[in-house]
């Protein structure tokens, strides 16, 4: 008997941030995934089994995350983990997941540790922050002739990845990585950091800040009249809210992520239908988190379909590793193999133009 699987039900766990600093990603992701599972369930489920999602909220607190993992794995006995948020939280859950043979699908973090060191149960949906930033640096060099790279980051695992990606990206291309500034999540004012970076002669700045801070940084740069500079963020800054800031404050901001913005995909009827459904249920247009949630949920359902009626940990892993498809929401080619546990390998550079994210380049 496989844990979390009965004849009528498959239990899916998620250890998420639904009320803490990253709720802006976690909450819509879980909402979108749940909505998709409901659709699948209404259509009879997967091989006759209903999908049941148990999402626990750790609010980005480690002890709470440990408690949730204990509950999900040892009490609820879930079959698979989906969309778990937070690098340390995911890492801390790995020993238990490994012991129980539970797969960790599409965690909501693009840290390299989600796949390194490689292990059978680790899967990631998209490219890592590190690779994203390297591609971003390359893009800005090729297209905007940027030479002096800098970074503004939160001293966290996420910030560090982006800083390293930028730094390595720049050095590999023979460019200069000149300066950096560090911040606290509750910091509000960036005049000091920006004048410093301006002084240092930066012409491209990678940011790894909260969404709210990113908006403030862009506004401040405009205000102090610094316009011959490019800002680029990662998947974590690839957020609708940033594009939607009024008065064009965020115009010209770049983001390197594993997928394009939804706006560019609305001509696909499947996507348009989903956007409509999602907006109907949640009262707001799907944001980045929702995109990730939906695409991960589809990914999981596809793997469960492929695993066949005889669902075990082994059959599931095998099915995952055999997946190869174009993601219907993001349009990104997604494939896994025994040696490649990263689904989407694309890196797409987008830019805010006219209040929307536009695709500018792809790797």
């Amino acid at each position, binding site marked *: 008997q496989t844990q979390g699987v009965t004849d009528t039900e498959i239990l899916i766990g998620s250890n998420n941030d639904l*009320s*803490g*600093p990253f*709720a*802006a990603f*976690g*909450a*819509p992701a879980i909402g979108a995934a749940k909505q998709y599972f409901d659709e699948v369930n209404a259509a009879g489920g997967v091989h006759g089994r209903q999908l049941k999602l148990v999402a626990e909220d750790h609010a980005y607190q480690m002890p709470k995350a440990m408690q949730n993992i204990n509950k999900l794995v040892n009490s609820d006995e879930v079959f698979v983990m989906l969309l778990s948020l937070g690098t340390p939280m995911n890492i801390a859950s790995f020993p238990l997941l490994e012991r129980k043979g539970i797969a960790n699908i599409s965690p909501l973090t693009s840290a390299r540790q989600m796949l390194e060191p490689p292990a059978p149960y680790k899967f990631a949906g998209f490219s890592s922050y590190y690779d994203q930033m390297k591609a971003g640096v390359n893009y800005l060099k090729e297209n905007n002739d940027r030479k002096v790279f800098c970074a503004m980051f939160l*001293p966290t695992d996420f910030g560090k990845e982006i800083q390293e990606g930028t730094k390595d990206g720049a050095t590999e291309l023979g460019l200069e990585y000149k*300066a*950096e*500034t*560090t*911040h*606290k*999540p*509750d*910091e*509000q*004012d*960036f*005049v*000091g*950091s920006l*004048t*410093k970076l301006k*002084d240092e002669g930066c012409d491209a700045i990678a940011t790894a800040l909260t*969404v*709210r801070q990113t*908006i*403030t940084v862009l*506004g*401040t740069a*405009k*205000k*102090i*009249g610094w316009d011959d500079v490019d800002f680029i963020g990662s998947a974590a800054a690839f*957020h*609708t*809210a940033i594009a*939607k*800031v*009024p*008065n*064009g*404050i965020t115009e010209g901001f770049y983001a390197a992520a594993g997928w394009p913005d939804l706006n560019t995909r609305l001509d696909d009827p499947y996507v348009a239908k989903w956007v409509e459904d999602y907006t109907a249920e*949640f*009262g*707001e247009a799907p*944001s980045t*988190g929702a995109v990730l949630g939906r695409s991960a949920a589809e990914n999981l359902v596809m793997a469960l379909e492929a695993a066949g009626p005889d669902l075990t940990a082994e059959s599931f892993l095998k099915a995952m590793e055999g997946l190869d498809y174009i993601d219907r929401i993001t349009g990104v080619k997604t494939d896994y193999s025994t040696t490649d546990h990263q689904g989407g390998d694309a890196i797409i550079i987008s830019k805010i133009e006219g209040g929307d994210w536009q695709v500018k380049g792809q790797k």
Partner: protein
Amino acid sequence: MDILQLIVSGLANGCVYGLIALGFVLIYKATESVNFAQGDFMMLGAFITLGFTNADYMGLPFWLSCAMAIAIMGVLGYLLDLVVLRRMFGQSQVAVVILTIALGFVIRFVAGAIWGHEPQSLESPIAGVELRFGGLALGMDEIWVIIVTVLLTILLYFFFARTKLGVAMQASSQNQLAAYYMGIPVKRIHSMIWALSGIVATIAGILFASKGSIDPTAGLLGIKAFAAAVIGGFGSLPGALLGGLIVGLVEPFAARYMPAGYSQIFPYLILIIMLIVRPHGILSQIQTKKV
């Protein structure tokens, strides 16, 4: 020029802290308890305004929305005291602190449930407008923040120092029993001050949201504002502004002149040093007990 720009935006930034700090001090001055949900009040006030004025929601005129949000938060503050906090009357401060922390959980949930968890921008006429004086850039939002904060501080200062009600508020925080003996309706005064702090929080929230964007966790900023109020001398209104300005000014200067990895710790380092030098804040509100 550089330095001038740093000072100007540091001042504006500090005024936001000061404005939130005012809310802390108000409550403390009249009830001697600390409202850890003050930051969340601010967030809620901002969201209510946003709900009224943003095109996605009700699309009402901005100033009308502000007035309505301020009124609603005032009433909410009053009711909160009437229904919940009044039952804690006379209980230890730390229990009240825990209560307000728990209240913060609830407010964040409610805000998230109504307005979602993603940052949103307040569609405010004072956002994104810049004025330039030579090389110096000053946002309209910043000018507003500075003016409103200074005015509010002065107004509240005179309210507490000069008016009968203001002095009675201070009296009822110093000795609830004696205040009662004098016929001061201590509980009603508490409700009034909670209403007032709801109003101040909303003003802070509107200005804060105009300077950037708002999401349900924005209230965490309150902790830094609290720290600012403390180094200013907790209980002193000018102290709150002063503390806010210090934190606000230290931030950009540290970011400008300190190496990465160290700059972000400076506000806290300064805070500790200030407290070691002046253990009861700059404008100390502590009196040595006469025995």
